[in-house]
């Protein structure tokens, strides 16, 4: 999975601010969500992303994995990510 290539985003103080084309909505992600978003460049699999989240946020892999999958579903719902 990777970021929607049409999404413009900027990291500000560790939080991602994202604007999608044709939508008057701006999304601001939490610090952990922002890390996942930043890593969604299409070159990493979900396991490696979860491992990075565990490193950065001192969370166990099971919780990180569950949260990351739920977060990705949210991103999909808003068309912020696409399958590679």
């Amino acid at each position: 999975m990777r970021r929607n290539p049409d999404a413009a985003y900027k990291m500000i103080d560790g939080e991602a601010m994202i604007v999608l084309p044709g939508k008057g909505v701006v999304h601001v992600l939490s610090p952990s969500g922002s890390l996942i978003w930043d890593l969604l460049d299409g070159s990493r699999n979900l396991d490696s992303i979860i491992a990075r989240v565990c490193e950065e946020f001192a969370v166990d892999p099971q919780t990180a994995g569950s949260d990351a999958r739920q977060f990705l579903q949210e991103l999909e719902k808003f068309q912020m990510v696409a399958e590679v």
Partner: protein
Amino acid sequence: MEGDPILTSALQEDQSWKIADRHPGWNFHPGLNESPGGEVLRLPGAPFPLRLEGLTGDSVANLKKRWRTLKGEPAISGGETRLVVVNAGVERFLVRPPVDQRPEEYRSGFASRDHEHLFWSYRFAIYFNEKSNQGKIAICRPESPYLEEAVENTLRIVFAWKALLMGGFLIHSAGIRRAGESYLFFGPSGSGKTTVSGLSPAADVLHDDLCLVVPWRGAYRAMGFPFLGDGRESLPEIQELNPVAGFYRLVQADAEVRAGLEKLPSSRGAAEIIGSLPFVSEHSQARLAALDNIARTVAQVPVFRLKFRRDASFWNAVEAERKVR
């Protein structure tokens, strides 16, 4: 079949009316050389030096009337932007949505390559080269008031581009001058921008709907956008750039709630601001430039959420915060 959900859905998704859209390509404007008239108008008091060519005598008179309060030199010195009005030779570029597709969104198109930009809407199409600082406004209807409206719409787009190139942006906001600084109150339609303007001395209102923010001489500064908005009859009279004291996202409060300020984290403040930028969400290059510019702006200028009743008491909260900063 009446009430058939599948058929209803298909009708709602019918976009066939767009088939008559005409998207001007990069070869469209170079072939246009006939102007409605031979008059030239230099715009006084605008943020940027500007020269309009190809106007009719009537359109010059009408534009001077619309811009009658603009005086003096441009606030931002630099090379003069030259825009030539030319006849498009086509009836329209974009088709208005049919009545059953309302509420209508303002339809427009945008394309960029290197330093060149195209923008088009229903009955005008702009070509602008930011390197040469020149462009053409192709208009479908050369008579009044369509010509003047096309010119003002063009200037909104061109000034927005120029602001982005300078590291700034246009923002839908009420701008109020107070003690030599600009206070920018923003929020969606109905949030109170016009009310804030109405509660402030008319002589200090930069604009009630659209302001320009640019880094200039060591600070982020703002001025009112110098043209009439929809349905407005008077222009802002202040044509100067003042340092921005803060951005204030208007949130209407109940009558019994006191006006109060909450400083937003930079990312939230930036997100609130970008939601109030004209043109930006539709066009990818502008989005990216705006995100960069706003990120730099909020690193220097605070953004607040302002709980606000429809009276002037909000100034107490705003000024109290400004004094202790």
